[in-house]
């Protein structure tokens, strides 16, 4: 077996809060293989969002070790982390986090702008990505002209535009109705199956976790459960 894509050892993260030290992560050991579709579950305050931020290179852990694709993330500079986020990671957020006053197309191609891809090629790729999530017809619409489900699909298109190795989705259906949630999860599942993208989905809904192959539960900054729901790998 090759080295895991995501490898965390003894991860800790603490914040000072009113003179006290809050341990959001309290020794997390986790390995996620390339091509897995994993759900991270837990109540709010369990540390799952903090773990997501660390895995996404948005925040540095206080202690421990984190290797992404064999690279020790702790040793990278801020700019190198930015490049890593740009190339290897795609984000899908609960509140979509599209930039207002920009069309769907402009939002989707923004990662390519930061990657230095020329405008013409970037627009073609962005249109292809929108096609994949079924929204090519709305390419010119701004976020406030779209429904929540549509905005989330635009943000999925933005997440996959750079062909990332891993897509991190933080409560991707948290703000959506059942029908839109199913649409979004179907698209993510499809991406996983057809492209082999590694997916890590943070959720507190069991039916969303049920789309995944592996389920990790967290509590008080620790991993308390790790089970294979239906695996390619043997348990």
């Amino acid at each position, binding site marked *: 077996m090759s080295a895991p894509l995501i490898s965390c050892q003894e991860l800790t993260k603490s914040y000072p809060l009113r003179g006290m030290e809050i341990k959001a992560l309290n020794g997390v050991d986790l390995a996620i293989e390339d091509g897995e579709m994993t759900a991270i579950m837990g109540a709010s305050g369990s540390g799952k969002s903090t773990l997501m*931020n660390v895995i*996404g290179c*948005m*925040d540095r852990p206080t202690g421990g070790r984190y290797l992404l694709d064999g690279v020790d993330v702790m040793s990278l500079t*801020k*700019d190198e982390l*930015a*490049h890593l*986020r*740009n*190339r290897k990671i795609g*984000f899908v*957020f609960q509140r979509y*986090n*599209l*930039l*207002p*006053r*920009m069309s769907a197309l402009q939002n989707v191609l*923004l*990662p390519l*702008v*930061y*990657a*230095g891809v020329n405008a013409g090629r970037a627009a073609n790729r962005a249109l292809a990505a929108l096609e994949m999530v079924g929204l090519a017809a709305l390419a010119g619409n701004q976020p406030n002209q779209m429904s929540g489900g549509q905005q989330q699909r635009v943000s999925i298109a*933005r997440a996959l535009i*750079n062909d990332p190795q891993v897509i991190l989705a933080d409560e991707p259906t948290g703000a959506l109705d059942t029908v839109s949630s199913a649409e979004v999860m179907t698209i993510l599942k499809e991406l996983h199956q057809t492209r082999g993208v590694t997916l890590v989905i943070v959720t507190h809904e069991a039916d969303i976790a049920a789309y995944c192959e592996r389920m990790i539960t967290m509590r008080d900054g620790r991993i308390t459960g790790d089970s294979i729901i239906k695996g390619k790998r043997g348990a």
Partner: protein
Amino acid sequence: MSLKPKTLVDFSFQALKANKLRSFLTMLGIIIGVASVILMIAIGQGAQAQVMSRVKALGSNVMMVLPGALGRFGAGSEGTAQSLTLEEASAVARLPYVANVAPVVRRAALVTHGANSWTTTITGTTPSITAISSTMSTVEGRFFSPADEKSAAPVAVLGQTVWQNLYPNGSDPVGTTITIKGVPFTVIGLLQSAGASMGGNNQDDFVYVPLKTAQIRLFGITFIGLMEVQAAGQKEVTPVINEVTALLHRLHGLPPGAPNDFTVRNLSQILSTAQDISGMLTLFLAGVAAISLIVGGIGIMNIMLVSVSERTREIGIRMAIGATQRDILNQFLTESIVLSLTGSFIGIVLGVGAAVAVSAFAHFPTPVSSLSIVAAVAFAIFVGVFFGYYPARRAANLNPADALSYE
């Protein structure tokens, strides 16, 4: 790899258009600053040009010989010493390259005509003064002649102000009799208006009489107050100054190397002093206007700080999808430069427009110098960078995770 300038400018216009009124109000400080810098410099240079042309009208190849040494308060003035005489004036007139010499005596005295009286300055001089001073010509009658001078004739030529005060009904003064210090004089001419001098003196508040008349009939003196000397041309001014200085030094019996008991002053010195003063005025006006540019810059900084904290989430999103710190820094820096540059372009249009309007309506020359435009724009860019850097750095230093979860 960082973002292309064009992309940054696109981002800036997107952000500034989202808040049009606020962007405009932020720019207003720069607009007013740039417009006033350009207008103030134009007005200052206009004033300078006007002063120069007035001084030039007096003739820059004219110099003044005053009694008394160069004192603490500049040149000695008429009346403080009695070291100059008519004979010396004649000697000066015989020097090479000297075109004209006009010895002058000035005293204040009461002048009456009928029931009207007026205290003014009596100037005793020779007819050669008309060749030296371009404003010295008559609108009525004539100036006194060498014959009047030779015979010490009791004749007078009036300035406009004196005429207005002695002849309130505006009648022709020529041929009438006035008294100066009780001595009767026949008015033979009325001078044209000469306006105010550079020092702000009314040049029309004078009565001119022949020098000899003034010395004998009015003041009972033998010396003269000062002499005005005109060189043959601009180039001869310096040699004439040297010649006159050497001659008077010798005539006054001063040992070689001893300080002079007189002063030779040239109008070109006054010219350069006037230039210095109006140049300083221009600088002062521009400086005051530049302060408003700094105030405008503080306005930009203020709004950029507000903008950074309002858009913390946007910054987090951009960082999540791969923006480096430099990308974020450049984005906000570009925004403040775009603000100040756009403002300065509008300011240039307004400033030039105002300068044109001033010269059209106030009949005052306001030459807009291209240097002032370049300086205003350069200063605006400086303001944009200087006051935009701190907010931009603040944005760039945000932690991506914190920025993204900012409410």
